[in-house]
């Protein structure tokens, strides 16, 4: 790794201590078997089709136009939105405004330390978020301008992408950016016949490994009022019928989150009124 001249540099040979813990002899299959018991109850006591509890709050960042903080189980994410600004380095006129998304994991947010520079996964998530949010924002209302959306994951306990999209949606709404609808998002992890809604970090990682032939993760975001899916993201190997069933589950789950976001957004409006 080259020396970063703009940060204080650690010794070059630092390695996570987890590498030296007593060797975990369990294969991923064995690990997976512990995740769900016979009654479809997971380690944390949730049923396989049960979503974790969400806590949400807007207006956490003083100088942002809009901001939101979300806690989905242990997953903790902050999102902020800034006023439209002129698109830098652009000379031609564009009819629709642009959305710039920046998704970042804090260095301490995952079991393994993350680097300061944006890695490929973060870049991928940024572009997925951009696609998902673009559909919800009335981009024709601010031609030639760009809205900046920043997301920081403080603690990644699974389903970070969907939680980030939900939080970014709430931040956009509280920033007064014109939107077609409230956007919510949900994650589903599939391994064989098991279908886990809103997986935690361990469930998520295990579903990415091919223990059985059919496995994978699906993230969708939904514009609830008009029953539209604004984006669909899938990894792994799944047959078509499983996918369509999954979409139904996810769609339902996304709709269930909507009232929470609505309540949160309205609260921010009322807070705004009492200030002025």
């Amino acid at each position, binding site marked *: 790794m080259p020396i970063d001249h703009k940060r204080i540099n650690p010794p070059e040979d630092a390695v996570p*201590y987890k590498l030296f813990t007593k060797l975990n002899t369990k294969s991923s299959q064995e690990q997976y078997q512990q995740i769900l018991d016979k009654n479809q109850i997971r380690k944390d006591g949730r049923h396989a089709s049960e979503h974790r509890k969400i806590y949400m709050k807007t207006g956490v960042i*003083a100088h942002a136009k809009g901001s939101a903080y979300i806690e989905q189980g242990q997953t903790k994410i902050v999102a902020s939105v800034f006023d439209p600004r002129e698109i830098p380095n652009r000379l031609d006129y564009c009819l629709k405004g642009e959305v710039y998304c920046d998704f970042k994991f804090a260095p301490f947010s995952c079991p393994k330390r993350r680097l300061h520079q944006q890695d490929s996964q973060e870049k991928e998530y940024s572009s997925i978020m951009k696609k998902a949010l673009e559909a919800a924002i009335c981009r024709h209302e601010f031609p030639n301008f760009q809205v900046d959306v920043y997301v920081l994951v403080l603690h990644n306990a699974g389903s970070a992408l969907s939680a980030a999209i939900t939080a970014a949606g709430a931040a956009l709404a509280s920033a007064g950016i014109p939107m077609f609808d409230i956007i919510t998002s949900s994650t589903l992890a599939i391994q064989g016949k098991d279908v886990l809604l809103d997986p935690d970090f361990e469930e998520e990682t295990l579903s990415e490994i091919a223990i059985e032939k059919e496995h994978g993760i699906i993230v969708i975001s939904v514009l609830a009022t008009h029953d539209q899916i604004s984006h669909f993201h899938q990894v792994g190997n799944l047959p078509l019928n499983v996918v369509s069933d999954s979409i139904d589950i996810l769609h339902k789950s996304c709709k269930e989150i909507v009232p929470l976001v609505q309540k949160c957004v309205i609260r921010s409006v009322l807070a705004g009124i009492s200030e002025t």
Partner: protein
Amino acid sequence: MAESFRVLHPIKYYRDYIASNVRPDGRGLHKFRPVLVNIGSIQTADGSALAKVGDTTVICGIKAELCTPKPECAREGFLIPNVELPPLCSPKFRPGPPSDEAQVASQLLANIVKNSKCINLQELCLFPEKLAWCLFADIICISYDGSLMDACIIALMAALKSVQLPVVDYDPAADSRLVNEEEKKSLNIKSVPICSTFSIFDEKVVLYDPTDEEESLCSSTFNIVVREDQLSSVHKPGGAPISDEKLFECIKVSKERASTICKLIETAIHENNT
């Protein structure tokens, strides 16, 4: 109307307020903002804390890794503090490598940690020349509204106090290391340095605990770091000159504030342990 006046002629706007001994946010000139500490909420980190000074929110997460000590200090481990000012926290920051402000903050924080000797780096060494702990302390600003250093130090110190390191068995002959995660130890934090920020407005009025707007309008901003009843840093990086009398008044105030904030951290730690 007042809002547009604030945008168009900010100095005059502030001058009018300060002439009547009050700041636009309703504080007196010599008043501090409330402080909040929350400890140990990020389980993926080995130690973590969130500090909030007024509207400035900072989160510090500490990740421990194993490394070999430097040949010149063979008996010492590492504490690597880095302050991150992401574009998320304020419209004045842009994405990209750390800004000059973030770099200066990181260095100042590293200096304060070194000067105050709050942590004995030798205790982070597991075996001389062979194995040591490297603590990555990443301090990320979530919301930026002035007095950044105050919040950074509180977050870092509170996070350090919450660090739980596993016990490591090291066999120098075979160079084998075994980490026992069941058994964990906390760090021995000797003392807690506390930073207070002050700004000089119009070269004569001292504002305590300035907000972002105040800092940008002021001609000088300086930090005083107190450890127990000693000073561990008086950092004034240029700007308008200050008279001795005002400087020592600020030192006195920071000492009083430091003891209350130390108690605050203690209370939060105690809450965490119960």
